[in-house]
């Protein structure tokens, strides 16, 4: 247990360092610093993977139950998603300025939350658990990436040729950032949709009903519809620019609230996964 926690603190330290490096790299227009920040983010993945792997081996199940595990898995996916994107296209490095704080906040909150061991109950003992949770994590990572691009877009747009626009000039042109935001929203929309579908199938196999308007089901649909609105505004109403970027910025926290906030606010049959009453 201590070993896991130490490694997790190490990972968090890497992510905090990467965040600071991204911010300074962008402010002082130091491209090498933002590139190194990507490496530091990638380095943070190693201790986090080790810690989660050790926990997985010890408990016999993946990071699915309890806020500590759920937030950890989300953070891992967010950072991994960003690192892969930045590795493939170094022009996207500065997006870390928007994405890494999300990872730091999530993991930081997890480190101060209960790290109790929650066993897998009979209600959770299904292969659907892995599939359902995996798509939730991947979807959130995509939404977090779109959030990062949207932040960059808005910062640059507000600066309008000023200091921040200059600091972020290495990033792709604004219209490309706008399209990238939409591409990641579309990816998240698909992955979130698969999460809803797998959840519905699992609910039907487990409880005999595929949809029961439970708060977490309802909010997952709300998030999906919100991103559907985004996609309609982008592709059908031809919205572009700052308005759409703000939309992506506001939508991401709603997705986060759905994943980790709902079970703490509402009485839900999903409460068990975040460490509340048993499912």
């Amino acid at each position, binding site marked *: 247990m201590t070993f896991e926690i130490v490694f997790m603190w190490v990972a968090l330290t890497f992510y905090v360092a990467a965040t600071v490096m991204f911010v300074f790299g962008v402010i002082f227009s130091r491209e090498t610093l933002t590139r190194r920040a990507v490496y530091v983010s990638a380095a943070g993945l190693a201790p986090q993977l080790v810690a989660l792997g050790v926990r997985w081996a010890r408990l016999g199940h993946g990071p699915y139950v309890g806020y500590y595990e759920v937030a950890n898995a989300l953070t891992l996916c967010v950072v991994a998603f960003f690192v892969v994107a930045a590795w493939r296209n170094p022009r996207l490095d500065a997006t870390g300025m928007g994405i890494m704080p999300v990872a730091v906040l999530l993991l930081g909150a997890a480190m101060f939350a209960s790290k109790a061991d929650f066993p897998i109950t009979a209600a959770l003992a299904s292969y659907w658990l892995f599939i359902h949770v995996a798509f939730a994590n991947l979807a959130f990572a995509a939404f977090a990436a779109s959030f990062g691009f949207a932040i960059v877009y808005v910062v640059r747009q507000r600066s309008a040729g000023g200091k921040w626009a200059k600091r972020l000039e290495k990033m792709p042109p604004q219209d490309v950032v706008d399209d990238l935001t939409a591409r990641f929203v579309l990816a998240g929309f698909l992955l979130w949709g698969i999460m809803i579908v797998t959840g519905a199938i699992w609910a039907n196999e487990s409880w005999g009903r595929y949809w029961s308007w439970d708060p977490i089901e309802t909010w997952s649909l*709300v998030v999906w519809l919100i991103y559907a609105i985004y996609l309609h505004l982008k592709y059908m109403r031809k919205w572009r620019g700052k308005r759409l970027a703000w939309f992506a910025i506001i939508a991401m926290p709603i997705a986060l609230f759905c994943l980790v906030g709902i079970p703490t606010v509402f009485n839900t049959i999903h409460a068990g996964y975040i460490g509340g009453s048993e499912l």
Partner: protein
Amino acid sequence: MAQAVIRRLWRGAVRFLASTALVTGLLAFVSLWSAVATFVPQGEASSPDVSAWAASNPTIEPFVRAVGLHQAFTSYLFLASVLVLGFSTALCAWRRTKVALNRARTLRTAATADRRTVCGTHDLEIAFDPALGGPQALTIAAETLGHLGIRAKRKDDVVAAVSSSLSVWGSPVFHWALVALMVVVLVGVLQRSDGLMALAVGQTRPDAAASYGVINTGIWHDWSGVHRSIRLDAFEPDFRLGGLDRGPTPTVSVLDGSGAVIKTQRVYPNMMLHAGSVSISSPACGFAVTIALVNAKGVEVGRLVQFVDFSQTATGGTVPVEPFTVSDSTGQVLLSGSVTVPLDRSGAGYGEWIPKVPTAHVVVTSPDGGQLVDSVVKPGESVMLPGGRQLRIIDVGWYARLAIVDDWTTPLLYAVMTIAMLGLAVTLLTRQQLLLATVIEGPDGSRLAVRMRLWRNTPTNRAEIASELARALSGDEKRSVS
């Protein structure tokens, strides 16, 4: 005249329903409505949660009640919005289908296009260095496109990067699947039956409305076509499998009309019994107390099974599901009573309170309310009733409350949801592009003729392609008149 008016109205309605402003507005409304509904207790006005909320929020309660937010997902406002959204989606899907058909036709034609076709129809002409030969210009063009992320193939005298004609079907398939999903859900609601049936171990009941304690049936559900029975074969209070306690686990059989077993299996969380359109889970269980009424001569004259539920609040830890009555031949009630099973609270947890040898706590009252019997008895023992009659406890066993859903649309639902996601995946992952280039000879020298359609998911844009090709070929770009 009238026809023209009707046609105009029809077109106006279609235009309105297919407008993206309406769709986005409806999506926003459904999202907001659903989100707000999660903060408001759902149920009838008489339900305790709704009443308590109404008492603590007297200012907004009249509005909430008026708009139907207490039954948010069955309210007319919500259902009407979803219905209109369904029509809008269908119209949207239809429009996308027409676009996809055109694009697919264009892509299929482009896939077999030769030099002559591109010469006849192109969007751009780019002059190139006369020192370059035609084949070399095409090679440079293919490489330039490759640098821009477009993999182009060289086919005779044409450089081509043409997406599969299937790539255009993602969005229409997704939207049609959404329409189908709404239809399947609606049909499912109309034809399904969904109820709770209580069965003691060894008991068999026909799958008919009268066998259920609670039943919700769609208006299209046809009981006359149902010829099966449900039997509870066994019950294990704490079944373990794979090192995991699966909880109280009944073994359930589904029998056909002739009594032959269709399927038998243990039912526990994540392990429902599926037999045809029927799915059975077991959300609750309790005790089943079998009682016999014995007359003054010691002859058993009747027998009944009393179901007893666990209760967190009851003194003995259990409550009767319903009281029983003893009547004479004219139907006059002679006695009424109830049975519970006292739990052994010396155990550490609720699961350990189940006694090793369960007993029955029998309370019998006369019609005027006077208490006649209040005894705890073991199986095989009796309590004496007035007139020399006895109530004999035959057995204290288990019962399972089975949730039985009869819905043939479930596989369709899964299929439609899967198709929707596949459509969305195609939309996300495939490009919709058409790019053909060939060399044409003109009075001003050789030029690269380019035909371009960049519909979706392309890594670049027309302007960048044109400028990069022009730069690579060191020529000038000129708009074609074609």
